[in-house]
């Protein structure tokens, strides 16, 4: 398994990537009922979906169930729209919102982060270095971009993102004024973009 990742990450990755079907091609194949395409999409994103599900649900069995649910949903009702963003962002939004749903169903009193993605169409653009990169290259970039954030900004971003906490809930938990929390999280997000700029644009 490790060896496989090494191969994908080798200097030939750009060449390898050119030969692999693009996400869009996979979505089209899934729409056409080709289950192998779902297999390829699984290879590409399941690990990320599972990681996120596990982080939010903190329970391997539930994370596994949710990962299965996500991929079966993609198969049954492929509702991905490339004009609305990348496959990765679509899957993360879907996984996070369903995982937090499950948390709530457990009786945890958590507020939803609002309105994440539904709105706003955008135009599709040429592939960015991010889209061409392998999973572990992506992880490396995002990790280092997050590590450059002041720890306060990183902490509130993570609390909002993974725990589905509202800004006022975070303010209460950390005993810090709401205004400060908002500034930290907004600046955190903007800084994150700044740190990732060369990679995603």
């Amino acid at each position, binding site marked *: 398994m490790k060896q496989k990742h090494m191969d994908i990450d080798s200097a030939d990755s750009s060449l390898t990537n050119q030969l692999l079907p693009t996400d869009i091609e996979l979505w089209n194949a899934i729409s056409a009922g080709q289950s192998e395409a779902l297999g390829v999409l*699984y290879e590409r994103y*399941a690990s990320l979906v599972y*990681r996120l599900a596990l982080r939010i649900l903190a329970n391997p069995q539930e994370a596994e169930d949710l990962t*299965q649910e996500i991929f079966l949903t993609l198969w*049954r009702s492929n509702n991905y729209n490339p004009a609305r963003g990348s496959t990765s962002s679509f899957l993360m939004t879907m*996984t996070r919102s369903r995982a937090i749903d499950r948390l709530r169903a457990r009786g945890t009193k958590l507020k939803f982060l609002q309105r*994440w993605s539904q709105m*706003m169409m955008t135009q599709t653009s040429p592939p960015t270095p991010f889209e061409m990169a392998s999973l*572990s290259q992506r992880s490396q970039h995002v990790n280092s971009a997050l590590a450059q954030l002041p720890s306060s900004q990183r902490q509130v971003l993570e609390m909002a993102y993974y725990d589905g906490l509202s800004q006022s809930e975070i303010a209460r938990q950390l005993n810090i004024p709401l205004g400060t929390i908002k500034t930290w999280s907004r600046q955190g*997000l903007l800084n994150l973009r700044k740190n990732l700029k060369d990679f995603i644009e």
Partner: protein
Amino acid sequence: MTERELPERVEELIAGYVLGDLSSFEAEELTRLFAEHPELAQEVNRLHEVLELMPYALPEVPLPQHLRKVILEAVDVSIIPQPRPKRSLKMWRNLAGSIAALLVLILGLDNYNLRQHLSTVQAQVDRQKDVIAMLQNSDTHLVSLKGMNVAKNAAGSVVMTPGEPQSVLILQNLPVLPKGQFYQLWSVVNGEKIPSGQFNASSRGTVLIKLSTPPATEVQGLVVTVEVSPAPHSPSGPMVMTSNL
């Protein structure tokens, strides 16, 4: 307004929007900004993409070995795969198909002329290339035009691409006008009709021409009138075609 020039305040509001933490006062302010600068929608989307990158930083955990198999087996037994083409894609194919058919028709009908006039051939090929290039652009959209009054059998499309100063007009079954009269295309922008070029139908009632139009994103509708003036500022002749935008 590009990303680099975005004032800090606007950036901060958009970040708040993406994070879902705007106060009602801020939400109002941002709603107003969205109305004034629709291009900010892209900014929202970009920032949302950034936020959804966060899980990449999570520590790697091995996937349960059997999961892939379980999912793919569930898929294979659940349904005999049925093609479920996306509606938009299907519609696009249909539209592109009819445009292609129309092109074949026009080019086919004009074949006689093409053989006789090499320059016309070149012009036709160039225009055809233009249309194909535009059709390949993912941002391109087609606006269909329907005939009315004296041109009630006329039909066709305008191929528009955001960022392209010119649009391609493809029409058929348009009556040939008497000498001294022209077809005039108007683009409706903010309720006003902006003159967007004149043209005539070929002897077979077809049109394939590239005309300068206002930015595709601003055009709310398209109208064709019959005019006698070579450069009218506002429509004075009868309307013969209109878009159903």
